[in-house]
């Protein structure tokens, strides 16, 4: 499972980097979104992959999942979500004001 997750994060990051280097705003927004997905999965994996254990340290159950990365991911998701919404609005505004959807405003 580790290899699969690592592969997913790697592919997402690679696609994200490629797309965010494109010249138009829509691929750039998509690229940033993919990058934020990749980093969310990465943060989650940093608590190690644990299956079938609660994220609570309780006495009878010896093993538990690390709760902190889950909290971090939640924060990162909220921030990433807000930023995606903002950058989409900004891209639309740029399209309206600059007359085209190129990142540097020149077709």
């Amino acid at each position, binding site marked *: 499972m580790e290899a699969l997750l690592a592969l997913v994060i790697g592919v997402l990051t690679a696609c*994200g980097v490629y797309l*965010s280097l494109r010249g138009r*705003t829509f691929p*750039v927004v998509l690229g*940033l979104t993919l*990058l*934020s997905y*990749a*980093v969310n999965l*990465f*943060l989650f*994996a*940093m*608590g*190690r992959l644990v299956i079938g254990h609660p994220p609570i340290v309780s006495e009878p159950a010896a093993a538990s999942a690390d709760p*902190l*990365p889950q909290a*971090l991911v939640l*924060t*990162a998701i909220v*921030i990433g979500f*807000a*930023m995606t919404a*903002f*950058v989409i609005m*900004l*891209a639309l*505004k*740029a399209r309206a*004001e*600059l007359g085209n959807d190129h*990142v*540097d*405003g020149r077709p």
Partner: protein
Amino acid sequence: MTDHLAIAPVLLPLLAGVLLLLLRRVDIRLRRLLSLGAVVLEIGLAIALTAAVADGDILIYALGDWPAPYGIVLVADRLSAWLLLTTALLALFALLYALRGIDASGRHFHVLFQFQLFGLAGAFLTGDLFNLFVFFEVLLIASYGLLLHSGGAPRTRAGLHYVVLNLAGSTLFLFAVGTLYGVLGSLNMADLAVKVAATPAENVSLVRAAGLLLFGVLALKAALLPLHLWLPAAYAEASAPVAALFAIMTKVGLYSILRVDTLIFGAGAGPVAGLLAPWLMPVALATLAVGALGAVASRGLRAQIAYLVVASAGTLLTAFALASADGIAAGLYYLPHTTFAAAAGFLIADAIAARRGELADRLDPGPTLPGNRVIGGVFFVAAVALVGLPPLSGFLGKFLLLRAALGHAWLAGILATVLVASLLALIALARSGSLIFYRSHGPAPAAPARALATELAPPLGLMLLVAALTVAAGPAAEYAQATASQLLEPSRYIHAVLGGG
């Protein structure tokens, strides 16, 4: 009250911002009063905090009373208080300039302004790396709104670049933070400092990669070469009070670099000690050189001052890269000076641009400005401060920096770069001043009359702060020296955070 002194400067702008959001339909005069009152109160809190930590105490505030490293802590030491005070004073004058009407030209100016202060205060006071990320996001989100405030196509274009670049930066920040957590199992900076020293050999390269990635992200925020390209466009297009407030933004990056470099990757960091050190000096000198060259090559006054902000980031990092108590102290003494000077520069550039019709701030001979001599005089003082000429504190800061550099391996390079960059800045500003004020001809275009006094009062106030920093150079330099020695002894910081708090 003293128990909560460390969190008060963070909560105050947050509460003021929320209140302003709720009162958004109320008369603007009340909102202005509220915003101004909050900033004045913030200055009071910053002074109280500085006084509380001046004798070397480190205030710890454990949120929810969860002890570190399990809970999140706010840590106020001399460095945090010094930067907080600089921010609060800067904010007052930026806000005073905005109250002349720019705040009413778009929605939610005061809300965003307060949230920006919230993010700045939090970034300076937090003792947790992930929290630093969150506060960075808070101040960035507010800065996006402020940058785009009252719109316009060039501003939108600059804003789009700024937002996209910072979003990519935030992603890299999370990768670095995630790697550090995955390897070391903590995000509390004091705890990281302890754990990093005991990194097992097989994980050293991972920690190094994460640390350098973190440095890369902070260098983006601090506008260090080659990650400075976003700054001139964004700052030159922002409205004047916003650009003035943004003068502190690069210093947040520099603050974080200094904090991470001395605390986590300091001398006691075992296998990763001095991780950033080989990078700092070359990057600093290159940034300084490019900033000064950019200032000479700029075709607009605001872009010129924005390049001088890049150069000042280079100067400050040069001081920090000396890694000696004298060097860091010189940088910390120079930091408020350069922040105030750059902010005053942006405000005056706006006052000039508003009187030149379509020419705005372009560096071409134009009409004689109404109030030529008064504006010219203020511009002259600000230019002296920006370049760092005597008698103002910039000269003292650079003098301290060069004196601290004596005996450093890079002495020749530091001397040459700092002095030549100062000369270039001098040439650039002298040329701009003579183009705008001496080679003018013909009457000014009919422009709506603007009150000169209220317009020039905020930059003059900033100049008074610079003068105060010059007059009080002794105590200020002593404080900076004490701050530097506190930074170079991270064991007290670590003990204060982890040792029962």
